[in-house]
């Protein structure tokens, strides 16, 4: 077994850290306060090639694999969860769906500008009646000659407010349901019938756009069907598997920030004549965060390696998402506690980190759904079928 990062991935991490410290960290508090998507930073990420980190070079990417993408998610989320979320929704699910199931022409037309940050992507699955129960979507697509007419809408769409391209899941055959009845479409957001209805006002990740989208007689050319008609469910399940892994990577970043902050403050802050680091109550907290962080890191990068070497990883990706989001939340909670009143202050980044971490246990499949996925995979091997 070899657990070392390759020199190219070490160099990539260094490049991303340099970018994150110089370009992302300084705006993190501001975009949270002003509820603004950092468009300029997103474009810069594209200019240096990072938004194409995991896509092949022939489609405008860097070709650094899933490993490279996990490193990007870790490092960006270490300084700003909002920017990390924008990046994740763009690369990890929006563009990823096109990369996984798009044909060559679709990849040339859409993936290249997305990889370069000239355009941005979102992933349109969730509906008000279909979140974790993704198969329950109601958006309809009806064939009309060379086109499909979409009617319906999506909610909680990350990047929805500014995306140029949305991969939309719609029901094409209600009789067939999830297996065969759902199709994925590549939708350009300046087409007639596409509307951003509203932006959500959220507790955390406030430097992101979470939008409600409405489709009214939205005409999509047949060539923009992503993958095969009726196989949309497969497309988005594949995208979400990858997404779960990289959310686990994002959580490494959040937990790392918490640990660094806690160690620093424990060294600095003196109470009862000695620094906090000398108190066992604090030492144990820090030991716990460090241990869980290390376990998470091993899990996530092992799964990235499975992806890059073409091995099955779906079950482990659910574990990355489940464990990662809970580790990050716990780490930030503990770090905040160690900082006392300072941690609770809005002028200190932990408060933002605490609000931002909470979404990790909710989006792209709640912790409960991840547990269902994991348990049903385990029991399936024993011949027991679990229905959610």
């Amino acid at each position, binding site marked *: 077994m070899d657990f070392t990062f*390759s020199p190219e991935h070490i160099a990539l991490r260094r490049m991303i850290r340099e970018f994150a410290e110089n370009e992302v960290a300084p705006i993190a508090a501001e975009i949270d306060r002003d509820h603004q998507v950092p468009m300029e930073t997103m474009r810069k990420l594209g200019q240096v090639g990072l938004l194409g980190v995991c896509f092949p070079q022939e489609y405008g990417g860097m070709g*650094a694999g899933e490993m490279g993408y996990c490193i990007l998610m870790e490092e960006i989320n270490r300084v700003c969860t909002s920017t990390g979320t924008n990046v994740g929704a763009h690369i990890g699910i929006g563009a990823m769906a096109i990369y996984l199931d798009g044909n060559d022409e679709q990849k040339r037309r859409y993936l290249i500008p997305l990889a370069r940050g000239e355009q941005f992507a979102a992933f349109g699955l969730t509906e008000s009646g279909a979140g974790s129960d993704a198969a329950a979507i109601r958006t309809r697509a009806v064939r009309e000659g060379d086109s499909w007419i979409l009617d319906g809408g999506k909610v909680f769409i990350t990047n929805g407010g500014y995306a140029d391209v949305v991969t939309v899941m719609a029901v094409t055959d209600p009789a067939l349901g999830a297996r065969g009845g759902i199709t994925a479409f590549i939708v350009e957001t300046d087409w007639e019938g596409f509307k951003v209805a509203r932006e959500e006002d959220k507790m955390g990740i406030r430097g992101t756009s979470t939008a409600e989208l409405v489709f009214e007689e939205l005409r999509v050319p047949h060539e923009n069907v992503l993958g095969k008609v009726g196989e949309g469910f497969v497309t988005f399940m594949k995208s979400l598997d990858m997404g779960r892994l990289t959310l686990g990577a994002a959580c490494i970043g959040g937990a790392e920030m918490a640990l660094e902050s806690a160690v620093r403050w424990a060294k600095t802050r003196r109470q009862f004549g000695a620094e906090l680091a000398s108190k066992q109550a604090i030492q144990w907290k820090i030991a716990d965060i460090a241990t869980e962080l290390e376990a998470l890191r091993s899990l996530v990068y092992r799964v990235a390696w499975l992806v890059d070497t073409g091995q099955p990883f779906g079950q482990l990706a659910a574990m990355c998402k489940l464990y990662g989001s809970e580790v990050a939340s716990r780490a930030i909670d503990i770090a905040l506690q160690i900082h006392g009143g300072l941690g609770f202050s809005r002028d200190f980044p932990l408060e933002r980190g605490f609000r931002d971490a909470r979404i990790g246990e909710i989006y792209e499949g709640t912790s409960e759904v991840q547990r269902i996925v994991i348990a049903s995979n385990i029991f399936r091997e024993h011949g027991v079928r679990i229905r959610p």
Partner: protein
Amino acid sequence: MRIIVILGRVLDPSGIVVKGSAGRIFVNREEYLIQPADACALEAALRIKDGMAAEVVALPRSPLPDDDILRQAIARGADRAIYLTGPALKAADEAAMTGVLTAAIERLGGADLVLIGSTTLDTGQGQLGLRLAEALGGAQITGAWQVSSADGQVQAVLQRNGRYVAVEADPPVVVTLLPGALKLRYPDGVRLINVYRGVGEVGDALEAWDAADLVDEAALTPLVESRGKEFAPERERGVRASGTPAEMAQAAADALRQRMRR
């Protein structure tokens, strides 16, 4: 125009804690950076290349255990880099490096402009660039904020006697850049990956040359050697000045002057 950029690496000081009382340096994060002033030199070279036909070649400032910073230089836009290797090079000091670098530059076909940082972040040594100027028989411009080239000359902006002045010299010229003078651009993602994989247009941009092929082994013997480390006495905090306000002010002025001279 051929521009040589000399690059070194330095252990990131934010990852170390120096404890005089323990007589040791604790490394909590072993991360190497391009020497900050050398990074400015690389940016200066790339800016010249942005505006005219120029070849930028990166060479190491000291023996390196790996070629990492040279690959980084290529990822950020350098055309070529030469990794100097060989057991005899291991202990090379500035004098020995001057010999090797001079021979390497000669093999490259000479240089119109050599860019290097004015000082190193760790050891504060500025001699390598100027030794090179001597060895190459060129002019030297030290402590530049900016470098450019026009009409076959090299121009630079410096601070002299509290003023910024523009100066000029005929090639070959060695220019040393101040740390913080220019912000080094980010690597290009594709070049970064490809330079590590050895593919694409940067596939053969990095070469390794054995120092023994460039100079005699005797020329690699260092002139300067290290004889250990010393730690300043532990900092004493909480010292107070006494006396009248004027006397206290005098004590403060003396202390500040002492510190500011450094």
